[in-house]
């Protein structure tokens, strides 16, 4: 025995030879392997497991499954602390630690339970009514109060030490649920040889089957379940995934499931994930999701000890635990009698079965024959007792009879709602079935079908037959052969009397509909009275059906009560749309591997280690890691950038430019293709030469720029900006495949094949001459400006380009990835006598700003070629992409903002990107803004802060004028002078290098 309420025998899921220790709210208890936390607590006589959300009322477990609204606890501690775990599905393990939540100072004595005294003010929508005035209190007072009161449990504050992963699987037939219908479906489908995947939320199959009382194919159902699982396990084409919740049903039969791989142990074993998120692509789906029992709505129906009838039965039969010693069963349907039978079999006293129906059904007659007191037409009115139920008062609907019965457990059933969550996610609107008193799936939209209780079939024989047929139907719908199917599993046909609709029992106290959100029958009535009569509005106004249980036990009752309030039939009210996830999924599972530094893959260049060796600070450029700057000891960021950019102009610098997009282009029509892609002409570019090109989007705005080199008659190499490499390739694919398939042009990315460095500065030529010695002549004669050569060096092919982004004498050298480090080292060593330094992306940017070269900041998708001062590049002799739309009125308007240079004219302060340019800094607003600053730097070459900006009227109107660069974020407005963007060496003399 592991507690006062543990039965001496029974409990199909527990292993009495494996006792386990656990703690709840600091107290030690014991349970058995196979217990849930809820069953183990009940076994130990603990019925109080939580406090309700709004009124902080004491609550025990209502259910025995994932639909549990009350028994929600924090599990584990420290970094693994996890709030809102349902005690009814948390499997017990040795050393489990759990604490109750949403209470202070303790579960038994919760100060906030005083909220109940305020309950007349805390009705539906009280947020909207209570916190209206004074308006000045909204943020400082009300918001704080609401936030402190809101929420359940505390999330861990330390990083989660466990790992989560994603996985994919495919199948012909996916069966959701391993109850009798699901098992029958998996068997019939699996036997045909189809690829079948069976997923079950719980750790054990069988669903609501009673292990001993239900018989299938002449066997105890427990034996049938075991044999069925064994048969399925033996089939190579069938996979069973237990502890797996199918939580999302998306388009094209893509479904998502959460596998709780190691939630049932204290810590995942080494290398094992805690949870796994599955994406399932299924040709056909069988939904055998079962149903959820509903609570009867009577006063105090939320007291610990009041449970759903099926849950009471489950605790007795699955876990060998009695939730009480003297039980009253209140029901409106036949299933309550099953619970009575289970209790009697376990030796538990059934004080009374109160059947709301007036006719004596067959099950009631049988119960009476066994000596149980059965009263018909009798309804629960009010649960009695303090923190645990001690009795029940009952009366007839017409109030003609009333009595009180002592009991410590009330098993209630208001009927069963087919679980239509997943089918509703597909877009199917469930339809009302009066004989079921529930919503059932309508015609499928996706390739799915339902079976068993999930579509309102509650007798075992019917569930088995439907499951069997659904499995076969799914196989044939998947286009596979079913062959000669075995007969479906058989169970004794039982006549089930129809349930009676009882949505509100007599009484005028607190009768809860949604236990988790403390929504009472009165709240729903009030919502309708206040105009929130649409089911979607009432849901939001009352919070009915929200939070972790998503209203599994409460939705239908809530809808029925709304229908009553509206005076309309239930189908006219309809259901809310269920959305994924079916039950809570941890963010960790959605993130999977992609968190922390693995959030996205990192792209490294071939020379990454060279940068590391020289102390580079790396920056993320898209997915690439690029050296941003190379600080010397004791040097700050700004000093390092200043030093690097200064020294490049004085001696030489080497920069890793491998990340530039590189696209190899082949074909006889490559020149024509480039002509149409770029705004400038390409037909006359000779082999061995490079040219700067600018391309537009179809809408005429600038898309990207870079140099393209002609390596041979029918072979070009295009470079793109780092950011746009993939987009440019896609743009070209579209042009080639869709616009001009007749052109003989073919291309592929060469970004990763080739790595590259830029060597810039007056000493660049001397350094490369030494590094590549006899391999290539880099003299001005042999390699003039914009010249390109291919050469062999150290057994590898290299390409050298005489191009410059810095305005200095500069070269770019490309070699295959594997030779990158070797090339860097060779140049580095050759440069040691020539003052070579490494420079990063920041200095690269300083150098190009000084030259007025545009880059990403200026190519922001809103600018035209003319805005950048490159309007003359647009050829008028050929058509190109974007040409027509670039000629639109607004694109060529005179008052467009044009690229200009700015100089800070103050001795102190700095310029900042994003600042707006105004004439009067005391009248700075959106209307007076003349433009904006795009790029800034502290320029060693110019000797002050400089920047590039787009300015309405451009240089034509503002050359030499004094403006203010207003930055309200920093509360700065330094004075600037408008100048040409070509700050440094406007004639380009330095490209030639030092005069010999």
């Amino acid at each position, binding site marked *: 025995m592991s507690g006062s309420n543990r039965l001496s025998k029974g409990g199909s899921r527990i292993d009495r030879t494996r006792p386990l220790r656990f703690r709840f709210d600091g107290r030690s208890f014991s349970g058995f392997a196979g217990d849930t936390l809820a069953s183990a607590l009940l076994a130990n006589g603990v019925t109080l497991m939580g406090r309700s959300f709004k009124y902080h009322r004491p609550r025990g477990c209502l259910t025995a499954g994932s639909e549990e609204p009350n028994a929600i606890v924090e599990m584990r501690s420290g970094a693994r602390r996890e709030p809102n775990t349902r005690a009814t599905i948390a499997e017990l393990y040795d050393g489990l630690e759990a604490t109750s939540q949403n209470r202070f100072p303790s579960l038994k004595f919760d100060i906030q339970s005083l909220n109940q005294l305020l309950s007349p003010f805390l009705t539906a929508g009280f947020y909207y009514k209570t916190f209206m005035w004074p308006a000045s209190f909204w943020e400082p007072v009300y918001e704080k109060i609401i936030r402190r009161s809101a929420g359940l449990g505390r999330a861990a504050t330390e990083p989660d030490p466990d*790992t989560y*992963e*994603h*996985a*994919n*699987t*495919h199948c012909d037939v996916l069966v959701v649920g391993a109850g009798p219908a699901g098992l029958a479906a998996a068997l019939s489908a699996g036997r045909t040889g189809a*690829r079948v995947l069976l997923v079950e939320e719980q750790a054990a199959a069988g669903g609501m089957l009673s292990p001993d009382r239900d018989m299938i194919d002449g066997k105890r159902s427990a034996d049938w379940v075991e044999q069925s699982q064994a048969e399925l396990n033996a089939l190579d084409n069938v996979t069973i995934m237990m502890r797996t919740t199918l939580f999302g049903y998306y388009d094209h039969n893509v479904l998502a499931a959460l596998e709780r791989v190691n939630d049932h142990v204290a810590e995942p074993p*080494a*290398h*094992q*994930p805690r949870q796994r998120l599955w*994406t399932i*692509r299924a040709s056909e789906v069988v939904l055998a999701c079962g149903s959820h029992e509903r609570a009867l709505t009577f006063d105090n129906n939320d007291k610990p000890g009041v449970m759903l009838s099926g849950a009471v039965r489950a605790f007795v039969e699955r876990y060998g635990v009695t939730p009480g010693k003297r039980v009253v069963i209140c029901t409106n349907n036949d299933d309550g009698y099953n619970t009575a039978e289970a209790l009697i079999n376990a030796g538990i006293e059934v004080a009374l079965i109160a059947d709301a129906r007036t006719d004596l059904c067959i099950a009631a007659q049988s119960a009476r024959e066994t000596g149980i007191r059965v009263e018909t037409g009798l309804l629960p009115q009010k649960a009695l007792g303090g923190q645990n139920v001690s009795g029940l008062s009952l009366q007839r609907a017409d109030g003609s009879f009333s009595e009180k019965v002592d009991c410590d457990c009330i098993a209630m059933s208001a009927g069963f709602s087919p679980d239509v969550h997943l089918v509703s996610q597909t877009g199917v609107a469930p339809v009302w079935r009066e004989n079921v008193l529930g919503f059932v799936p309508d015609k499928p939209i996706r390739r799915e079908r339902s079976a068993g209780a999930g579509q309102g079939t509650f007798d075992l024989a019917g569930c088995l037959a439907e499951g069997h047929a659904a499995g076969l139907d799914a196989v044939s719908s998947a286009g596979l052969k079913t062959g000669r199917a075995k007969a479906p599993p058989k169970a004794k046909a039982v006549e089930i009397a129809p349930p009676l609709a009882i949505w509100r029992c007599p009484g005028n106290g607190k009768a809860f509909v949604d236990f988790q959100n403390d929504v009472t029958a009165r709240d729903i009535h009030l919502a309708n009275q206040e105009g929130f009569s649409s089911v979607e509005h009432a849901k939001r106004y009352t919070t009915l059906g929200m939070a972790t249980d998503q209203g599994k036990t409460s939705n239908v009752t809530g809808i029925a009560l709304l229908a009553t309030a509206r005076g309309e039939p239930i189908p006219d009210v309809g259901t809310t749309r269920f959305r994924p996830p079916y039950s809570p999924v941890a963010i960790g599972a959605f993130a999977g*591997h*992609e968190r922390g530094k*693995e959030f*996205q*893959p*990192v*792209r*490294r*260049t*071939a020379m990454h*280690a060279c940068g590391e060796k020289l102390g580079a600070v790396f920056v993320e450029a898209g*997915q*690439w890691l690029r050296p941003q700057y190379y600080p010397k000891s004791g040097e700050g960021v700004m000093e390092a950038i200043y030093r690097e950019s200064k020294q490049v102009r004085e001696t030489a610098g080497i920069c890793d430019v491998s990340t530039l997009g590189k696209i*190899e282009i*082949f*074909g*006889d029509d490559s020149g024509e293709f480039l002509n149409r892609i770029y705004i400038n002409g390409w037909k006359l570019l000779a082999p061995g030469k490079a040219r700067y090109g600018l391309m537009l989007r179809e809408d005429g705005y600038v898309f990207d720029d870079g140099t393209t080199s002609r390596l041979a008659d*029918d*072979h070009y190499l295009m470079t793109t900006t780092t950011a746009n490499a993939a987009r440019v390739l896609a743009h070209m694919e579209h042009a080639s495949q869709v616009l001009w398939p*007749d*052109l*003989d042009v*073919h291309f*592929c*990315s*060469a*970004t*990763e*094949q*080739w790595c590259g460095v830029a060597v810039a500065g007056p000493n660049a030529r001397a350094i490369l001459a030494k590094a590549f010695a006899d391999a290539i002549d880099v003299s001005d004669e042999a390699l003039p400006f914009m010249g390109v050569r291919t050469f062999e060096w*150290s*057994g*590898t*092919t290299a390409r050298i380009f005489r191009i410059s982004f810095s305005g200095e004498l500069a070269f770019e050298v490309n070699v*295959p*990835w*594997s*030779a*990158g*480090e*070797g090339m860097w*080292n*060779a140049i580095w*060593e050759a440069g040691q006598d020539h003052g070579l330094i490494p420079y990063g992306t920041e200095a690269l940017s300083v150098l190009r700003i000084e030259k007025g070269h545009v880059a990403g900041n200026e190519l922001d998708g809103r600018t035209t070629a003319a805005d950048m001062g490159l309007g003359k590049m647009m050829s008028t002799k050929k058509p190109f992409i974007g040409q027509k739309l670039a000629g639109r009125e607004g694109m060529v308007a005179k008052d467009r903002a044009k690229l200009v240079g700015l100089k800070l004219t103050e001795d102190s302060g700095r310029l900042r990107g994003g600042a707006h340019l105004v004439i009067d800094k005391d009248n700075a607003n959106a209307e007076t803004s003349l433009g904006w600053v795009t790029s800034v730097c502290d320029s060693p070459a110019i000797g002050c802060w400089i920047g590039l900006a787009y300015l309405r009227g451009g240089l034509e109107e503002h050359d030499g004028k004094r403006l203010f660069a207003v930055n309200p974020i920093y509360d700065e407005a330094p004075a600037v002078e408008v100048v040409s963007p070509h700050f440094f060496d406007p004639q380009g003399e330095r490209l030639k290098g030092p005069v010999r």
Partner: protein
Amino acid sequence: MTEFQTIHPLGDVPPQSVESGDTSGITLNVRHEISMVQIFARNGREMELAKKLNIEGVPGRASETRSFTAFPLAPGQWMLVSKNAPGSGFGTGIAKKLKGIGYVSEQSDSRVCIRVSGSQARELLARGCRLDLHQSVASKGFCAQTPMAQVGVLLHQVNDGPTYDLYVYSGFARSFWEWLAHTAGQFGYSRGGRGH
């Protein structure tokens, strides 16, 4: 002066393994010494090119020849992978053969090849690959370009063991390897020698 050396994107990945326990585990190999070229047929010369190289253009099926494996990438486009080391003249040889009918882009350095083998290789790949690799759908010779762990991969089923080759862009190789090795830990894996 530092001696010139070539490097491999996965050259500095430390040798590492995880005991496979009761499973038969996974073996991860990095295939060195292979050459790759991407080839394109001139417009209208696709059939001629395929015939010349004795390859097929069936999407999703690799063609094996004596000297290389060809993966169709798009109509008229293939990736050829040879067991010859880069610098062995493989690309030049192909370029000569295709003169007048196609083009060749050297790609030996653009990707690394990771060979995944072992009875649970399929389960490992399912952790990142959305494609159906079940034996009833994909068998020896199956190939596809698909994202895995957010990285574009050219996947090839080498045999029905199953053994797979994953061709991953060099820049992403380290990141991809870290994901693969981490994920393989649950099955147990060993790092094989230099695969060929």
